[in-house]
């Protein structure tokens, strides 16, 4: 009789191993653990056994039942997992299908580069100061040490308005006078961003309007050595930690001494390439010590105060950084251009 139980157990476990879906599992349960299953019948009929056999048969019968129940639970888990797995398999995607195209807004490339410039100078303590795009001749030229008819005026091709003495600013430098007159005699550290205008043919290299960011620091102890350090810092922030700078004497009427600042070409690393015209250097900034006449026009005593100023072209920097060969792209606003940023 005990052998019968052993056989039953083995048979049931073997059958369970064959059950691979929920239906087969239910049928197995009916067969081996159901009310009319032979094990149930056996356990129900225990009382009919001779008293001596009963304890052993009962113990063994219940043992088999527990084994089958545990096996069932394990089987159920196995089959559920298989069912889920099958279902998941059937839900597999072609992950190479394109993602849902969302409309992403973008800033204009000039705004992007301006913001980067703002951020760097802000960290260096230079606040943003803005002044009008349409300016008085006085502010654009005369107060900047460029008197009427002076040959230095040839450096700027100017749009004049029909109003006498009113023009489109050719550079952001008039903002220097505005800022100094507002803050003198307090020390000053500002950048002056804005749109500038030049009477030029519109070509791949020249535009009638472009942004400029000018910087100005005035204080009791500002030096040429400070100017060099400050611009070298800016270049490292803008063009990378390793960016080297070189300083060349140049001329601007509103600064003296004046200089042009080159940054080592980041396209070729200084080896020479078409972008840097094989010189290894890119002209990035014009700068110098604020001319005493300009300081005085701004309301500072040039014997006590000194200052430096610098200017850069954001579009030019963007062109160099991205290899843009045509400045007309900026105001052309072709979406195929804008959407690359």
């Amino acid at each position: 009789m005990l052998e019968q139980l052993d056989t039953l157990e083995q048979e049931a476990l073997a059958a369970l191993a064959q059950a691979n879906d929920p239906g087969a599992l239910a049928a197995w349960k009916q067969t081996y653990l159901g009310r009319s299953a032979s094990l149930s019948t056996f356990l129900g009929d225990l009382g009919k056994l001779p008293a001596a056999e009963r304890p052993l048969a009962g113990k063994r019968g219940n043992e088999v039942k527990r084994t089958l129940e545990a096996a069932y639970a394990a089987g159920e888990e196995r089959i559920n997992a298989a069912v889920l797995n099958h279902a998941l398999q059937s839900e597999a995607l072609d992950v190479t299908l394109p993602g849902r195209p969302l409309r992403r807004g973008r800033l204009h490339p000039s705004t992007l580069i301006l913001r980067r410039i703002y951020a760097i100078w802000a960290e260096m303590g230079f606040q943003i100061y803005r002044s009008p795009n349409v300016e008085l001749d006085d502010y654009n030229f005369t107060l900047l040490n460029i008197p009427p008819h002076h040959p230095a005026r040839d450096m700027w091709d100017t749009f004049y308005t029909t109003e006498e003495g009113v023009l489109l600013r050719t550079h952001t430098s008039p903002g220097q006078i505005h800022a100094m007159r507002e803050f003198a005699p307090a020390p000053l550290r500002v950048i002056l961003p804005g749109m500038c205008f030049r009477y030029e043919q519109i070509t791949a290299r020249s535009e009638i309007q472009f942004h400029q960011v000018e910087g100005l620091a005035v204080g009791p102890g500002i030096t040429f050595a400070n100017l060099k350090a400050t611009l070298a810092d800016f270049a490292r922030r803008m063009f990378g930690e390793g960016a080297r700078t070189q300083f060349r004497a140049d001329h601007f009427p509103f600064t003296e001494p004046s200089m042009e600042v080159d940054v080592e070409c980041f396209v070729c690393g200084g080896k020479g390439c078409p972008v840097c015209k094989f010189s290894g250097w890119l002209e990035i900034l014009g700068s110098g010590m604020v001319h005493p006449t300009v300081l005085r026009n701004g309301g500072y005593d040039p014997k006590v105060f000194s200052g430096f100023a610098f200017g850069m072209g954001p579009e030019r920097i963007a062109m160099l950084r991205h290899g843009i060969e045509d400045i007309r792209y900026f105001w052309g606003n072709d979406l195929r251009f804008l959407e690359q940023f």
Partner: protein
Amino acid sequence: MKVPLSWLKEYVDFDLPPEEIASRLTFAGLEVESIEYIGLAPQNGHIDGLPGEERGPKARGLAWDREKIVVGRVFEVLPHPNADRLVLCKLDDGRTIHTVLTGAPNLFPYKGQGPLAKPLKVAYAREGAMLYDGHQPGNVLTTLQRMKIRGVESYSMICSEKELGISADHEGVMILPDDAPAGTPLADYLGDVILDVKINPNMARNANMVGIAREVSALTGRKLRPPSYLFRASGEPLKKHLRIRIQNPEFNPRFTAILLRDVQIGPSPAWMQRRLSRAGMRPINNIVDITNYVMLETGQPLHAFDWDSLAARASGNAVTIITRTARPGETIVTLDGATRTLDDFTVLVCDEKGPLSIAGVMGGAETEVRDTTVNILLEAAAWDYLSIRRTVQAQKLPSEAAFRFSRGVHPAATLRGLGRAAELMRTLGGGIISRDTVDTYPRKAPVVRVDLPMKEVRRLLGVNIPPRKVAQILESLEFVCRVKETPARRRRSGKISDDDLTLQVIAPDHRLDIGTGVVGQADLIEEIARIYGYARIPEVQIADLLPIQRGNPGLEQEEAARDLLVNLGLQEVLTYHLTAPEKEAAVYPPGMEVPAAEYIRLANPIVPERRVMRCSVLASVLETAARNASRTDRLALFELGPVYLPSGKPLPAEPVQLAIVLAGPRESRDWRPSDRTPADFFDLKGILEGVLSGLHVPSPTFESTRDPRFHPGRCAKILVGGTALGVMGQLHPQVAARFEWAGHDLLAAELNFELLRPYLLRQYPVHSISEYPPVLEDLAVVVAEDVPVERVIQKIRSSGGEIVQSVLLFDVYRGEQAGSGNKSLAFALTYQAPDRTLGSTEAEEIRTRIIRALEGDLAGKVRR
């Protein structure tokens, strides 16, 4: 300015390679824009005729192989046996005798003369030499190869200037001066390097060889060797034959003249012609060439008059030269043959009969030097640079002389130029110089003295340069310096530091750019820094305290708006601030009367379509939409930027406007279903609501309005606190058509950002979140079609009170059940109290209040 180094070496010795000289000049503020190599090879980098590929910076030219291109001596020219157009030259190249074939017309005259009495020196190229192809346009490199021409073997040739890269001349072969030694590498005899130096306005004094040489001398420490300005005068005195009258000394501070008699006009010597050509001037004859040569050498432009023409005009009297400004309508025939009407600011050199030349700019035709001229009056004068500049611009007459005069030439240069030119004319043209120089100098140039305390140098440069070094730098530029103790600065210890010293400086008499006082100090400090070397000044962090930090709220507001618009999926554009009125009028439908706009107009527009400053940003953005129409079916653009409006003051107002343009399907095409319905009024409104709420503008409202640019029934003004900020809606279809979007709905908004600013708060409150459960319920109300939804919502809020947390419209139904002329609005309402759980009675009361208000005040009917 073109500076041939072979010429420059006459005034300063240097053994540095040309590239190093170019670099030092560039770093000192005389930018060398290009280096032209004539026959010589650069030290680094690459030019034509050399192996290698990478072109060096700024370098161009042809290197002559020293082995293959040499001076040759042609001693006989023979006819070619088979060709009339070719000759055979017997040539000695220093090694052996060759027969060289050439078609050069300038050798034909020597054909068949037998051995030449005076052999010709030429540039001879051996087999394998790299040259430019003389027969092709431009500079095409070619290698000289052995070939047979008409039965005669040819392996070498006699070169033209073009083939050697000296000029574009290929008319004949180049004939060298007789002193050229046969067999010498041509590069040694004729090679040169020409620097093209950019002369900035502050470097006008250096627009001449002596000026550049002075800079090289200062930068290399080698001695400057200026030319001699002495001359041998033996002729009859000029004084009794010439009077000078200067009417406007402010325009003509100095006028000097000298007379040369019995000059022989002819070509100038080869060396002078070569120098002039290499400096970019065309040789003409010895007299003209000498005036040009001396101008290039010393910087003093000169003018030569035909003395006999002047004397004839004076009809036997002494010649009277009068300098004065032009009279109204006065004209002159200049030596280019043009009749020129003069402005009242133009200064003339005249005699009693009328104008002779435009001072400093161009001579007159009547008194110019001709081939027949024998007596020459040579003028060297000083002119006011501003007046010359205006004349040059008005007459459109740029010239080498005007370039210098319009940037300023020191009056002291006159006598140097005059003396140098007279002596050259005497030695090269055989003239006799008048024993005296006529010199009228009514307005003496002041001697400029500047006291430069050493502590000023340190204060501005931030570096200690020893006083001796400072003085040496200034002296190398011909300043006169004396070191003095700064008055009253001797310390108690009696020790003198550099800071106690002052340099007393006198500017040399070729400089007009040195000011006085603090400006003069800055001028000198620039010279010191430039020659000392910017690279040697250390980089030192600013020691001054950081000034008060302020920020820029206005810009921050604009940048916040930009960020929100970008977050809402819009593309920023930036457009021209210059436009044309008709471009802006295009935002109105055709035939519509356009409101008159007052524009800021340009006096000198470069193109007609950019002749005024814009009054509308929307017009610019629509132009952008039009330009992209053929490339996309879908766009969402914005621009935030200024417009320019007359303000009654000299400067216009520059208020910032925001313009948005939206068109095309809401979603782009996809492989799955996407929402391809075109964006409409409410898409745009949603964007505006998003921006305004993102900027925390309190309760903006939209009110139906009419605007000729928009669809009459789909246009709203945007109100905040009773102020209309702008207008939005669907553009009139005829406007959409004008901007290439015919058949599409084009949505647009235009806001005055300045009116929005007062509502942009730096701080805004955030409400706490209620802990108590909300009561949610739906409410449907039927109202007449003409009742705006905004009024219904306001009514719900005002009647329900603050407890109404949100009012969400989730359905608008028009149809039978609502009744004709009505609409049914379905709202989801949320009631919530901050401090308690709402009971059903309280909720019921709120609902009742709302229903009463909707039914009573708006004649609505609430479905129960």
